[in-house]
């Protein structure tokens, strides 16, 4: 039960726990190999109590992962009940339905022991450098093509590595040394977190985390409920469309029901699951539904299990937001990242001051180039770049910034140093920000040349070619995604394309949607946009009505 912690002690203890999770994240980031982990913050570290409920999450990392980790840990506990855990035990899985929705992320959880007793769990998620299967493809028909699946199993048993499992895993990936290096980094991170918790219990004299966990969850639960209770009761619905896969277009139907201090988000009416890898398993659907709600309603209270207790998320089985095994799911983010836009659109009439328009970078557009360098070595490099964010009630959307994910971009100089590619342009894309009282963030224009001597391969994961980010409350849509070769031909937006040496490719990243009618935009802001070239003279005149 909730022990009595005064508001001073609770503040101190909470910060200690968040610091412990942050220190674990530092351990992971320092030693991880995967560029994706660092460049796109594709990781999380979470500290949990004996029930697998989160007590504290790391500050950086991927918010959605932090939300999923406790769900995965609870599944671990079903398979390996509390009493079976021994000091030095670490359990792993990458099962999309149990963990993060696709195979490349490993979830690794270590038991925390204090005075010989299991007091909680330290967990980490990290995007692996490789998982075998067909690299970076949204076009697989079944999950079996997408890589190797590790069911819930021990990675370490009493400190000893599970050699048999590792041998099978590493025998099925392209870069075994790096995959192992990152798994080691995750174990290091968990050990750091576990050590800090044990020290914390020593310092404070607490026997375990139970009372503290309940007290902290009660605080976050109360903060979220208070924010929800301020909304009028009612049912709010919205639909948004996406490109889907070839002829199979995607529809997200979202109904948000607010009743008192609770919120239900339901996706009945959403497209059925398809036989391509853009299906989004329920864990990912849940995470990308509650995260945008947290951002809009209670952004500054730290998070734990209690933050999301007031919100339920449901989606019909066999829909694209709750597909069943063995559906292909590798590019589940192409669907999951759309949910924030649907929820904000539904809630816009009742909380217009708290939401933003749809984002061009939801989903992110990712282009992976691979092939052979002149010296014979192979290369495989993701081009990181983002579209623009949707406009807000009182300010323009951020250019070239992703939401709901938080991917970074590397340096073009560094990129060209490792890949035989010359990037001729990477700049903001005029007129791509959706017009509005506040303008959507601009997308980007990238032009590059493949300078290999043999054909290279482009793996593209993208959407918004036919469905740009829509504006809100009278705002207009942002510019759509466009990818085309110099000869005018277009690669498949969600598949692999062979690229001849010397080919030039243009990638236009989508802009964010606008907020409010463009003709209500401040005239000085329109003039400034024109002077800076964010908008063209034509747009200033025709869309914004600048005299």
């Amino acid at each position, binding site marked *: 039960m909730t022990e009595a912690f005064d508001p001073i002690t609770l503040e101190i203890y909470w910060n200690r726990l968040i610091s412990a999770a942050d220190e674990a994240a530092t351990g992971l980031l*320092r030693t991880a190999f995967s560029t994706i982990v660092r460049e796109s913050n594709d990781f999380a570290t979470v500290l949990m109590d004996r029930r697998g409920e989160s007590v504290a999450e790391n500050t950086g990392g991927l918010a959605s992962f932090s939300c999923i980790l406790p769900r995965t840990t609870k599944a671990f506990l079903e398979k390996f009940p509390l009493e079976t855990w021994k000091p030095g035990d670490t359990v792993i899985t990458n099962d999309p339905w149990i963990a993060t929705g696709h195979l490349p992320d490993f979830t690794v959880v270590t038991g925390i022991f204090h005075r010989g007793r299991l007091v909680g769990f330290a967990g980490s998620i990290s995007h692996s450098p490789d998982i075998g299967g067909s690299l970076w493809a949204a076009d697989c028909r079944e999950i079996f093509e997408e890589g190797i699946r590790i069911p819930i199993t021990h990675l370490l048993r009493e400190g000893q590595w599970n050699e048999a499992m590792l041998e099978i895993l590493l025998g099925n990936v392209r870069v075994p040394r790096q995959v192992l290096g990152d798994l080691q980094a995750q174990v290091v991170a968990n050990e750091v977190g576990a050590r800090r918790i044990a020290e914390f219990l020593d310092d404070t004299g607490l026997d375990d985390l139970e009372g503290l966990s309940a007290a902290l969850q009660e605080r976050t639960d109360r903060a979220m409920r208070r924010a929800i209770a301020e909304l009028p009761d009612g049912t709010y619905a919205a639909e948004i469309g996406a490109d889907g896969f070839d002829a199979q277009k995607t529809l997200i139907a979202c109904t948000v029901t607010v009743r008192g201090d609770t919120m239900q988000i339901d996706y009945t009416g959403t497209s059925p699951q398809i036989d391509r890898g853009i299906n989004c398993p329920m864990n990912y659907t849940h995470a990308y539904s509650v995260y945008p709600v947290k951002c809009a309603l209670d952004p500054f*209270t730290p998070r734990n299990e209690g933050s999301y207790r007031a919100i339920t998320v449901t989606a019909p089985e066999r829909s694209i937001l709750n597909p069943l095994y063995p559906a292909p799911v590798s590019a589940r983010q192409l669907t999951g990242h759309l949910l924030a836009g649907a929820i904000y659109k539904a809630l816009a009439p009742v909380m217009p001051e708290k939401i933003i328009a749809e984002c061009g970078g939801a989903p992110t557009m990712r282009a992976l180039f691979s092939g052979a360098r002149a010296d014979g070595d192979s290369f495989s490099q993701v081009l990181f770049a983002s579209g623009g964010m949707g406009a807000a009630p009182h300010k323009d959307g951020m250019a070239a910034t992703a939401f709901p994910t938080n991917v970074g971009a590397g340096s073009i*100089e560094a990129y060209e140093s490792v890949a035989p590619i010359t990037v001729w342009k990477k700049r903001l894309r005029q007129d791509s920000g959706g017009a509005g009282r506040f303008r959507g963030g601009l997308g980007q224009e990238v032009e590059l040349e493949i300078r290999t001597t043999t054909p290279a391969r482009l793996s593209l994961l993208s959407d918004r070619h036919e469905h740009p980010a829509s504006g809100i409350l009278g705002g207009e849509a942002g510019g759509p995604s466009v990818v085309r070769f110099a000869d005018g031909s277009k690669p498949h937006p969600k598949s692999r394309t062979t690229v001849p040496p010397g080919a030039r490719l243009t990638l236009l990243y989508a802009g964010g949607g606008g907020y409010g009618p463009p003709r209500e935009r401040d005239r000085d802001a329109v003039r400034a946009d024109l002077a800076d*070239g964010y908008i063209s003279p034509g747009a200033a005149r025709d869309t914004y009505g600048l005299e």
Partner: protein
Amino acid sequence: MASGTATARIGIDVGGTFTDLVLHDAARDITHTGKLLTTPDDPSRAIIDGTVRLLEETGLTPADLHSVIHGTTLVTNTIIERTGATVGLLTTEGFRDSIEIGRETRYDLYDLFLETPTTLVPRRRRLEVPERIGADGDVLLPLDEAAVATAARRLVEEEKVEAIAVAFLHSYRDARHEKRAGAVINALYPALPLSLSAEVAPEIREYERASTACANAYVQPLMARYLDRVEAALIERGFHGRLYIMLSGGGITTVREAKAYPIRLIESGPAAGAMASSFIARMAGLERVVSFDMGGTTAKMCLVEGYEPNHKFDFEAGRVRRFQKGSGLPLKVSVVDMIEIGAGGGSLARVDPASGLMKVGPRSAGAMPGPVCYGRGGTEPAVTDADLVLGRLDPAYFLGGEMKLDPDRVTRAFAERISAKIGVDAEQAALGVQRIVDETMAAATRMHLAEKGKDPRRFTMIAFGGAGPVHAWNLARLLKMRRVVVPLGAGVASALGFLVAPPATDMVRSHVARLERLDWDAVSALFAEMAAEGRALLTEAGAAEGAISFRPVAEMRHVGQGFEIPVPLPSMSLSAADLPVIREAFFAAYRDRFERSMEDSPIEALSWRLACAAPGQHIDLGGAVKTKPGTGGAVPRATRRVLFEGVGWQDCPVYDRYALAPGAAFAGPALVEERESTCVVGPGSKVHIDRFLNLVMDLE
């Protein structure tokens, strides 16, 4: 040139509120300090007034001055307040937006309405010119010089820019296009300040390099005018010595160099504190030190190892949220690796309405109105107020008795602002403030060490700043550190840094390659070039050529990793034969940080650094101590009750710091008062005064 009697040196730190000065003359055995209000409209006024005053007070004349060493916050304030020059930027065609696109990350994951730092150069003043150099240094597209001239004319004639920055892709690899563009602009506008990215920050990563070049251009006109003014004013007063400027990395440099690369002064002031800590560490023989400087608004921590502060080679200026990483403009400059957190004497306590929990900082009462106890209109309780309630400060002896504190007003503020909301009495609320602020500092320090793979228990703390000695004992306790050293005179301690700083410069070039494929002749040539430049610079700054030391370092990583680590190199002249030694040095550095190594994974080098330094001046404070040796006794002048967490109220003897001679020793709990600060000695700890008058506190 300075004559034989010109042996006095003055260090001057121009801060936001105060200009601090310290004069040291080894030959005449004088150490003297001064403090006056900064004159923000023209900071050189306080410098001159202060110098004149210091000379008068010591009976010296301007002719007795050997040198003046100056640190300034002007550069950092210019960027924070966005009061710099109108700058134009020339970039490679296709890349004018790299300074606006940045790293494409949100520094706060949950804030939908995040404010980002505005660029120093708006898009309309960023022009592109056709040119392109590849990653390997090949010219893919020749520079269009006519386009450079057209762009420069437009920037100067139409946009009225006062400085131009040039940042072309891969210029760190081959700067010929940037240099050519610079020559074209210089021919058109010879007086216009120019910042070429390959000269300001010759490192790979276009955003950070361009950002640094723009920031340099942004502060250049202002700094040039300012330094000219200071120099002219000093000469006018009869000063014939040298004027040196403190660099962000803790070295000193010439006015000429400071005017060319003013951005390297961005952390000029804070670096002095770190240099002072290094000086005290050397004096006391402390190999591993956490330097802890807590003032009115912030606390700063840095590691001093082997008597030198840790360095890093990137910095963030003008943050939108002062203590939030990622919310500022990135700069590639050599700085002391310091963390700054919003925890100072003025940090305010409040109850957060969303969670119902008590929070302290980062909001600060500043100097005006200041904490409630100052009685200048402050109504929200601050850390200093809590220190007063807990008995750590004497209401009658604050700033040596210059300021009378008002305890009743403070107790009322705690009762109204905190107690009423969370149901604890004023004493417990004050204790809570202390606990929270100390925990916040401990967490930040722990994280800073964790990022380097270090354990605080192996370090000694050196504490200074007005609030540093008040909180040092508890902070050390939380970090499980065993020893705290508090130098005499918190105010003097930081300014000493100016007088001990060596002439120094940090050079860098990027040349990216896997170790086994490296062109060692090319790397050796880079080092030769950097050494020649460094030697010229330091001899100009007054160093004897033979006394200059060079430390070559490579920034290396495993292929595919995103973190480079600095690896010391055996020599500046390298060949393939050095490969085994360099590999082993990398693995050793890697193990040191990450507690493991991956010896079968390929290694690459990105940047090559050369630290050039002449020996710093030594100051022997021990000789200047005018106390009787062997007076080991310590007699308290009073007793005061102090509240300690988990212990309760304790009667503490109060010692006068100035009466404690070397060899004096006593046990805690106790208080040691001096003019600018009070040192809290916790229960169970033991204190002695060393021969340099440092207070050395050993925790149980």
